[in-house]
Structure formats: C-alpha cells, structure tokens
C-alpha cells in the first residue's frame, strides 16, 4: 500500500511472478544438482579412466552453462525484478531484513560463475585434480546459494520467532528451514538426473548410452527417498493452522497437490523406464517428456508452497495486499484510501464512489484477482452476488476461509468496493435491502359464529410453530418440505370444563384454491428420491392431505394433524402465506357437529437466500426459491465444503440438507461429525451477515416488515420486542448453537472468529440445541407477571423440550398455545393479510383479539365468573396490551 500498483487487470502480476519463478527455480535446482553431477561424474570418469565419460561431461557442461548461467542467471534476476514490481513492499521488507543474506548470496553467485567459467573454458587445460577442485567449488557455491535463498523463502512461509524478535537468525533459521533445504537438495539431485538424460540420449554408442542412462537413473530415483522423508518432515513443520487452511479449505491447493503427486509418480516411472533397452529415438522422446514433467513437478511444489502462505506474503506479518498485519486496526478506523499512499481518492462521495471502488479493488483484490483475465477472474467469482451478497462476502471474507485476507477499510469503503464489483464489473443493480413486496391487500376475515348461551364446545386450534417455511427448490435441494402441523384441543363448556378426547372426531379442510399444492411445487416429483416415500399427489410426509382428520395424541390431550403439505400459492395465482383451514369437531357416532372454527396454517416461501445469492423469485415473480438461487447456493456449498451437490442434483438426485445435517425439527440424525443444520447455517452466515439486531434475521427469515409474509405477528412486536431480544444477535445466536456442537471441527473453526455482542464473552453464552431449547417465556414473564424494563430472554434457554411454549400446558392440561395462539403469533396478533386473520378464535369466542380467558372472560369455558387463578398466576386481570384490530 506504500507503493503504486502496476495495473495489469487481465494478466495480474502474480501470473508473471509464477511464469518467471517456475522456470527459474527449475533451472536453479538443476544448477545445484547439476553441479554435484558434474563434479561426481567427472571424478567417476577419472577414476575409471573413462575417456567417454570425460568427453560426455565436457559436453554436458557446455549445455549446462548455456542453460543455468544464462537462462538461470538472468531469470533469477528476473524474479527479483518482477517481485519488486508486483510486491514492492514485500520485496523491500525481504531486502531490508535480509540484505546481508542477499549480499552473501551474491558472493556465492560470483564464486559460482567464476568456477563454471573456469571449469568450462579451461576444461582441457586444467589438471584433473584442479579441474575436480573447481567442479567441487562450483557445486559448493551453488548449494550455498540455495542455502541462503532457502532461508529467506522458508522464512516467508514460517517466520517463526522472527515475528517477535525480528532477529535475522530467527527468521533465517526458521521452522521449515532445514526440511525445506534437504527437500530442495533432494529435488536438485533428481532434476540433475533428468537433465543428465538430455545430454546422454544424444551420445553415440548404444552401450555407452545405456550405461549412462542407468547412471542418470540413479540420480533421478535415489533422491525420491529424500523427497518423501524430507517432504513429510517439511509438511509437519508447517504450523497446524496454516496447513488446515491450505489443505482443507483453499480450493486452489488441490490441482497443484495433484500435479505434484502425479508428476512425482511419473518421474519415478520414467526413471525406471530409462533403465530399459530402447531405441535412441524412444529415449529422446522419453527424455523430452520427463523434462517437461519435471517442470510440472517444480511448478506443483512451488505453487503449493506459495499458496500455503496465503493470505500473507510474509506469514503473520504482511498480507498479500502489502498491508502489515499490525496496521489492520488503524486501517479499519481511518480507511484504506487514506492509508494507501498511491490512492488517488482519499474521501468517498456520491460522485466518486465507483471510482473509489475501483481504487479499492486495485489495492485489495488485484494482487490475486484479474478482471476478465487469466487467473482467479473476479467476474465468475462474484457474478452470482447481489449487492447485499457482495457486501456480506466482503464482511465475512477471511474470517473462516482464511486463505483470503479480511477486507479492510471503513464501512463506506466496503460499500464502494461492493458497488464497483456489482455495478461496474458485473453490471447488476445496487439494491441495498430486500426489496419491498407488492402491496398486500388485507382481507376481512370471516369470524365463525359462537353463541355463548347455546354452544357447548369451544374448539381451540393453532399451528405448532407459528410459521413454517418451505423450500420449493425441489429439483436442486430441499431444506424444508411442505409440512404444516395443526394442533387442537376441544373443551366442553360447563362449570367444570373438560378437555374432550374421546368420542369425537376433528377434521380440517383447507380454504378453496389451496387444495392442489402439487400444481405449484415440484415436491411430489422428487419426494420419492429425496425422502424415499411414495406419496400420493397433495399428500404430505405424514400421510395427511389437504383435508382430513386430526389424530389424537393422548399424552397431551391434543388432536394433531401432522405435516399437512400446504403451500402459500393459490390456484388463482395469488401468494397467500396464511391460508385458512376450516376445522370441525363432531361426535364420532352421531356425526353431530359440536364446534367449528377456523385457523391459519402459516406457510411461507419468502426465504431470503436470493438477497445475497442472487436469482429471482421462483413463483409468479412473488416468492419461492428459484433455480438460479438454488444453483448458486449449491455451488457455494460445493466450493467451501468440497461436496458435489450441484452435480448430483443435475443428475437428478437432489439432496435433503438433513441427510447430512442433523435437525431436531425433522427428527433427522444427520452425520455425527457434521454440524446440525441450525448451527451450520447460522454459524456460517453469522460471519457474513455481521449485523446486530433483527435486520440480520429478516435477511433470511420471512419477517421483513415490508416483505410478503411479515411473519412476526405476535403481541410482542407491538411492544417493540424484536427477534434478537429473545434469540440474541446473529453472532450470539450462532455462538449458542455452535457451542452445543463443540467437539466437531467445524464448530471450533466457526466459533473462533465469532465474538459475543450481548454479553462480555463467548464463554458466557449458554449452549442451545435448536428447536429443543429456546428462549424461555418465563424468563421475562417471571411467574406470569408483567416483564420488567428492557426484557430479554436471550441466553435463558428452556431446560428441554418439555418446557417449550409450544409444548407446555397449565395445571389443567390446557396447552399454552390453545389460549395464547401460535408461537410468534401470540394474541393479540397482527397480520398484514387481515387484521384478525391470526385472532380468529379469540374473536369468535370473546369478540376480542386477546388471549382466551383474558379480561376476566372465564365464561368462555366456565360459563361463570371465576375467582381462582387455576390456569396460571396473574390471569384474573384486564389485559394489559390493548390493541385496535378492527
């Protein structure tokens, strides 16, 4: 950031470094190994008094000189040139911290070329003894050059104690110095063997060729022992946190690891093949191929080593972006544009926002990413993102997947960068928040009649969760199938009311227009593949259809209609997330109607995935998870987790998320070493949607106040209670879920970068199993009383499923939800689709939207006034939170 940036948007400086470095390093290793080869082969020739070997080594040296001294020497300077152009800050650091190392290396370089020139030009004049001495000196100087360069190169990967002391020797003799030196020395010998073949195959005389090929094969094959041993040592010398990022997460590593392994095998086979009898032309061909494979080997190795350093150029010291690790806080406070000396723009305003974004891109991204270019092209990597998605990506980058650096700068700068990438590079609109839905036209809800004098039964029905989202992306994946559960209790009115469970049948039927969900979603086409269940059209996973009978659950004295496959799409093309069900209770024997009411089955396909992952709505441009969104999600999952979900889906085998990720809500066990679904989803996205407050929730859940569902309908909303007041801010919420999953590797990785916002530290957050432990109502409503100031039940989880609001009963066996309504829609609820759509039963039985029995209306069931608070304390009062819902 100290230096101007050489703008090469299509090529990228990194590619130029790679191009020059790989060829140089290959030849440079030959310069070392070949030095030993010349010295030892010359000795062998003299010892065996073999003139042919003597002649051979003279020719070899000429070839060697032309290749290593000219091409190798100049490309070596070339690396220095190119890194100084692409990474001037890093180069300056290496030069300044290690100048005497470089100066020593220069002396060795001088010794090296002097020796080589003397050896070559005086080959015939020197005595054997002197010639061998010069050859040895050449090898010595060449190897010492490697010794020095290796110290500085390995320092960049593992600076070790230098980070604290900045002492030359601590940096130079760093943790990977020795294994790397021995590994490279072995590589040098192996490469000397490969290039030995090159000169041997042109020799005349089949038997001499064979002898020398065998000799060269020794050079090629024996070093493999060193490569394996020192390679393993090298690998294990790399600190765990670096190797995890490199080998488990960074998708860039994989092709180069394969290149390295496959080329190793091929070279080994080639080395053995060279032992076999063959025609000279075949030998030449083999040699040529082996030299090319050797180059691939070198490239594979160097790339893996380079990638292992990411996101740093000098590990834990300087990022690839040339930013010092120690400057990060300052940059985030004052801004990157001010920090970067060579930024034209220092202050962002409305006119220069995109240009500032391009400046920020150059400063932070161009080091690795090209634009429409040859390497790490940014366009396909960001094309799926919306502006919000891009912002989220920039926020979360480098937190978990640490092979990329964190994006630095102020919020304003991140927005400018995101705007540049989305608008300028990808030509997409800048939509900052989820778009408001089409206006919702509220309907009047017909309230069923109730005659308090003559009616003998009160039928209370509710939805178990208050909102059930469904993913209608069935051809790609299913995270939530259509499955709404209605529950009912039937109370016989009287001076001693009774919960009726025997001799009655309770039936349900969905409102007109919603009877055919299979017309609107592909669930039934994929149900057998995804769930292994042969389902009849419009029949749900528990066998219930769009109309049918409740089943009695004796234990809770509740009738249950489980997993009704209702969808929010009506046949007339409108989106309605609160379809109404007619519920009737009849005497089983006579069929006499005892009570009738209505209830909504809240169901939404307004899942906010597309806010970040892009794509349109699937259904009538209104709601639903589109193909594009689903594919983008699968591709992201595949890239991050090395899965092949997208390919599987394309082949007609879409997956259920819960096949791998446990989910208590579905009773899915998942895979033991993976996170449960809630922990995975929240734990991952909390890094990217690092917002506090309910704004984060409504990016994904259908609770946005201008969305097409507006699922937060409860009385709590009126009182200003937000999602996060009970569930916690996104990070805190995620921490609670992840702590429940501790012991799994992903949990540790995800927890690492999350910080608590509502309590002092993560340690204070209590673990929570999703769906089974939830914020406890009674933590605010202590003893059913009015909550105190600023109520919050965050971190006060129910001890287990029995204590959940949706499962609890009072002392009479009446379910909390029977009188108070569904979770998230507690009476008096407000519903954008009709003021009383969620309050049907209170309106029916009491004429008011308040909980059944409130305002001292005990007569609804008791047919008289009551004096004892049998249901719960604080009951016999006028309801506190008056609302107008008419």
């Amino acid at each position: 950031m100290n230096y101007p940036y050489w703008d090469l948007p299509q090529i990228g400086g990194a590619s130029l470094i790679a191009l020059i470095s790989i060829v140089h390093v290959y030849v440079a290793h030959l310069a070392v190994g070949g030095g030993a080869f010349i010295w030892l082969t010359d000795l062998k020739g003299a010892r065996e008094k073999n003139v042919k070997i003597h002649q051979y080594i003279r020719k070899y040296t000429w070839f060697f000189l032309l290749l290593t001294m000219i091409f190798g020497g100049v490309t070596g300077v070339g690396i220095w040139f190119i890194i100084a152009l692409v990474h001037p800050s890093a180069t300056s650091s290496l030069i300044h911290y290690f100048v005497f190392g470089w100066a020593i290396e220069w002396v060795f370089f001088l010794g090296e070329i002097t020796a080589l020139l003397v050896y070559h030009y005086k080959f015939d004049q020197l005595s054997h003894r002197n010639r061998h001495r010069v050859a040895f000196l050449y090898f010595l100087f060449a190897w010492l050059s490697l010794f020095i360069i290796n110290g500085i190169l390995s320092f960049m990967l593992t600076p070790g104690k230098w980070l604290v002391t900045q002492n030359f020797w601590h940096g130079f003799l760093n943790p990977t110095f020795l294994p790397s030196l021995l590994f490279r020395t072995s590589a040098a010998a192996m490469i000397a063997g490969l290039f030995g073949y090159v000169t041997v195959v042109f020799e005349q005389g089949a038997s001499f060729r064979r002898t020398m090929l065998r000799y060269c094969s020794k050079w090629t094959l024996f070093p493999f022992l060193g490569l394996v041993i020192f390679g393993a040592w090298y690998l294990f010398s790399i600190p765990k946190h670096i190797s995890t990022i490199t080998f488990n997460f960074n998708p860039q590593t994989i092709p180069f690891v394969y290149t390295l392994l496959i080329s190793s095998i091929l070279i080994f086979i080639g080395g053995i093949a060279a032992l076999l009898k063959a025609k000279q032309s075949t030998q030449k061909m083999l040699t040529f191929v082996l030299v090319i494979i050797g180059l691939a080997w070198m490239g594979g190795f160097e790339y893996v080593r380079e990638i292992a350093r990411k996101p740093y150029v000098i590990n834990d010291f300087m990022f690839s972006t040339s930013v010092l690790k120690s400057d990060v806080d300052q940059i985030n406070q004052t801004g990157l544009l001010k920090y970067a000396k060579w930024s034209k723009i220092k202050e962002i305003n409305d006119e220069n926002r995109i240009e500032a974004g391009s400046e920020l891109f150059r400063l932070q991204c161009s080091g690795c990413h090209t634009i429409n270019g040859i390497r790490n092209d940014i366009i396909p990597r960001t094309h799926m993102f919306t502006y919000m998605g891009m912002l989220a990506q920039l926020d979360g980058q480098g937190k978990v997947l640490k092979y990329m650096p964190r994006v630095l700068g102020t919020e304003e700068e991140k927005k400018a960068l995101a705007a540049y990438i989305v608008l300028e590079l990808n030509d997409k609109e800048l939509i900052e928040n989820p778009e408001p839905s089409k206006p919702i036209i509220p309907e009047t809800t017909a309230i069923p009649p109730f005659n308090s004098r003559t009616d003998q039964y009160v039928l209370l029905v509710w939805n178990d969760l208050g909102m059930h989202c469904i993913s209608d992306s069935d051809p790609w994946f299913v995270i939530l199938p259509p499955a709404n559960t209605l529950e009912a209790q039937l109370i016989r009115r009287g001076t001693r009311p009774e919960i009726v469970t025997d001799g009655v049948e309770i039936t349900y039927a969905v409102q007109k227009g919603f009877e055919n969900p299979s017309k609107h979603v592909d669930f039934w086409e994929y149900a057998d593949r995804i769930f292994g269940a042969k389902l009849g059209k419009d029949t749900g996973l528990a066998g219930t259809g769009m109309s049918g009978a409740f089943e009695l659950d004796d234990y809770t004295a509740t009738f249950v209609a489980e997993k009704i496959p209702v969808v929010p799409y009506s046949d007339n093309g409108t989106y309605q997330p609160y379809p109404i069900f007619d519920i009737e209770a009849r005497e089983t024997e006579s069929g006499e109607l005892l009570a009738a009411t209505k209830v909504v089955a809240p169901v939404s396909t307004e899942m906010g995935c597309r806010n970040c992952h892009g794509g349109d709505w699937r259904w009538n441009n209104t709601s639903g998870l589109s193909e594009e969104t689903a594919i983008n999600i699968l591709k992201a999952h595949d890239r991050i987790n090395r899965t092949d979900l997208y390919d599987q889906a394309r082949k007609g085998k879409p997956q259920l998320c819960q096949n791998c990720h446990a989910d208590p809500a579905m009773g899915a066990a998942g895979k033991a070493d993976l996170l449960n679904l809630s922990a995975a989803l929240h734990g991952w996205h909390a890094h990217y949607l690092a917002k506090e407050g309910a704004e984060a929730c409504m990016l994904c859940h259908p609770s946005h106040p201008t969305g097409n569902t507006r699922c937060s309908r409860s009385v709590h909303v009126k009182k200003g209670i937000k999602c996060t007041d009970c569930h916690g801010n996104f990070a805190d919420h995620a921490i609670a879920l992840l702590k429940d999953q501790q012991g799994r590797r992903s949990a540790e990785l995800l927890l690492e970068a999350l910080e608590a916002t509502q309590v002092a530290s993560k340690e204070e957050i209590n673990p929570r199993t999703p769906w089974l432990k939830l914020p406890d109502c009674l933590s605010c409503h202590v003893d059913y009383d009015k909550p105190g100031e600023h109520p919050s039940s965050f971190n006060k989880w129910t001890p287990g499923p029995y204590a959940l609001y949706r499962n609890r009963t009072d002392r009479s066996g009446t379910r909390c939800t029977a009188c108070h309504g569904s979770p998230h829609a507690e009476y008096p609820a407000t519903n954008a689709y009709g003021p009383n759509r969620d309050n049907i039963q209170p309106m029916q039985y009491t004429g008011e939207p308040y909980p059944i029995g409130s305002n001292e209306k005990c007569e609804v069931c008791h047919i008289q006034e009551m004096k004892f608070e049998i249901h719960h304390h604080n009951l016999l009062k006028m309801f506190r939170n008056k609302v107008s819902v008419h």
Partner: protein
Amino acid sequence: METLTLIPTPDSIPAPAWFFQVLNILTFLIHILFVNIILGGSILILMSRLTRTDPPLDQSLHGVIAPKIPTTFALAINFGVAPLLFIQVIYGQFIYTSSVLMAVYWILVIPLLIIAYYGAYIHIKNYSKARTLSVVSLMVTTLILLYIAFVYVNNMTLMMQPDKWASYFQDRGGTLLNAADPSFLPRYLHFIVASVAISGLFIALVWYLRSRNTAAEAGEKINSGLKIYAIGTSVQVVVGFWYLLSLPRDLMLSFMGGNMVYTIILAAGIVLAMGSIITGFLKNLKATLIQLGILITIMVITRANLRTLYLADYFKLNQLTLKPQTDVMILFLLVFIIGLVAVGYMIKIANSAPERRKA
C-alpha cells in the same frame, strides 16, 4: 497530488547508510566497466563487421575482445546484482516506485537480456562459419543493449524526480518514461560514448597483455585502441558539459561552486579526462589507464552526488532508521573475503594452466 505524500515510507537498514553507499559505489564501478566493454565492444565490432572488408577474427582490432563478450556478460550481470541490491537498501522507496511506473519496459529487460546474452554467444560461435547469422546476432545484441541502457537511464532519472510521479494516475499500466526530460538524452549519450571510449582502451589493454605474453607485435593495435579512447573521450567531454547544462539550474550550479566538495570532485574528473585524452593521443597506455581508473571512480561518485542533490528536497540518507545486524554484517565481510580468495584461487589456477594440455 502532493509529491511528498507519494513517497513510500522506507524500511529500516541493518548497517549505516554510508556502508551501503560505499559498497554501492564500489560494485557499481566494476559493473559499469563490464557493461561499457559489452556495449562499446559490441558497437565497435559491429561497426567493423559492417564495413566491406570484415577481416577474420584473428586479424581484426577487436579480435582479442570479441570472444570475451559472453563471459563479460556473466560478470556484468553478477556485478549488476550488487549495486542494485545496495541501492534498494538505501533508496528503495524511490527505485521501487520508479520501476513500477515503468514496469513494462523494466521487466522487458529480462527476456531481452537473455536474448542479447545468447546473441553474444551465437555471434562468436558463428563468427566465420555463418557470417550473416553472426552479424545479425550481434546487431540484435547491440540493439537490446541500447534498449536496456535506455530503460536504465529512464529509471535512474525517474527515481530521482518524484515530482514526476503523479503522472501515474493517468497511466497505471507501467508505461511511463522519463525520456522527455531535458537531461535524458545527454545522460544516455554520456553512457554510450563512454562505453565506446572505454572499450577502445580495453582493446588496447588486452593487446598489450597479449603482446607481453606472446611477444608478438601489437603496437599498432594498442595505438588504435588508444585512439578510439581519446576521440571517444573528447566527444564525452562535450556530451558531459551538455549534460551538466541540461540539469535543473540549482543542481547545475551546485557543481559550479554551489557545493564546493561536489564541484572540486567533478573538476578533478574533467581535468583527468583532459589529461587522459592527451596521454591517449600520445599513445601512453599506462598513464591513460591510471587516469581513467581515477576518472571513472570520480564519475561514479559524482553520479551519486547528483542523486543526493536531486533528492535533497525529499530525503537524506541519515533519515533512515538503523537497526543494526552487526553479526550478520561481519559474516558477510568474512564471506566476501573468503569468496574473493576462492575466486582468486580459481583464476590463478586457470591462468597458470598450460595453453593446451593433452587429455
């Protein structure tokens, strides 16, 4: 854009700046001598070979240095590494920046240098076998060398003129040059003419050494070489004054009494140049060599002085933070001595080897 805000913050140095400045001047001196011989030698050989006669190698004036050009390449590159290292240590914030501003031209030096280097080998290996190939190769080598000199003069002058750096914001692709600067052309010519002159003197020297070894008659060749030197240096004096006058006024005046030390050093150089021209025309090799040795040292020092003056408004060497690495510095000096001993030893056994030994 404020020029000062563009100058990068330098890193700390592990030994006093003067130490690196001395090493920089010493190694640059050797480097530039080798470079002069490669470029000047190539120009002279090329001129000779493009005449209609093109005498065989062993009869031509340059016959003694032509086979040495490739080897000189190796040494020039090696001795180029050292000053480039030391200048990055003390002037890194300037030279990294100017290099980036002209990155395209700068990096092209590498592939072109490889071609020029091979060209020198191709030239000499085919000298009489394949004349056209040989001459074309040398032509390519010479043109590339002129290109590299052009790029280097651009960079060395651009690094001293941070006031020109803001042009980066109009061109971030690394294609800025400083060739329009009034002092660019005289500085460039000052190097090329010097190369020719010094190559002339080098030819004279090699002929002299050869004649001493073989007792062959070489007087005419020595004189020709000296003549090239004397004429070349005469032109060089003129170019030198042009260069001086082309400098920004305050810098020029510093060398005309404004800075007495710098003025005296330069004046001594001019006197030596004149003296060496005279001894050159008088065919006195030794006197010319000695004068040139001092002269070239003075010129390299003056070159450093000029840089100090150019950068005076922005930077002084004593502003660098010193974080000593004395142990490593001593190790370097030891290695340096041992290295020189080893190099000396190898040169000694090479020179003491008989001309042809039966294998």
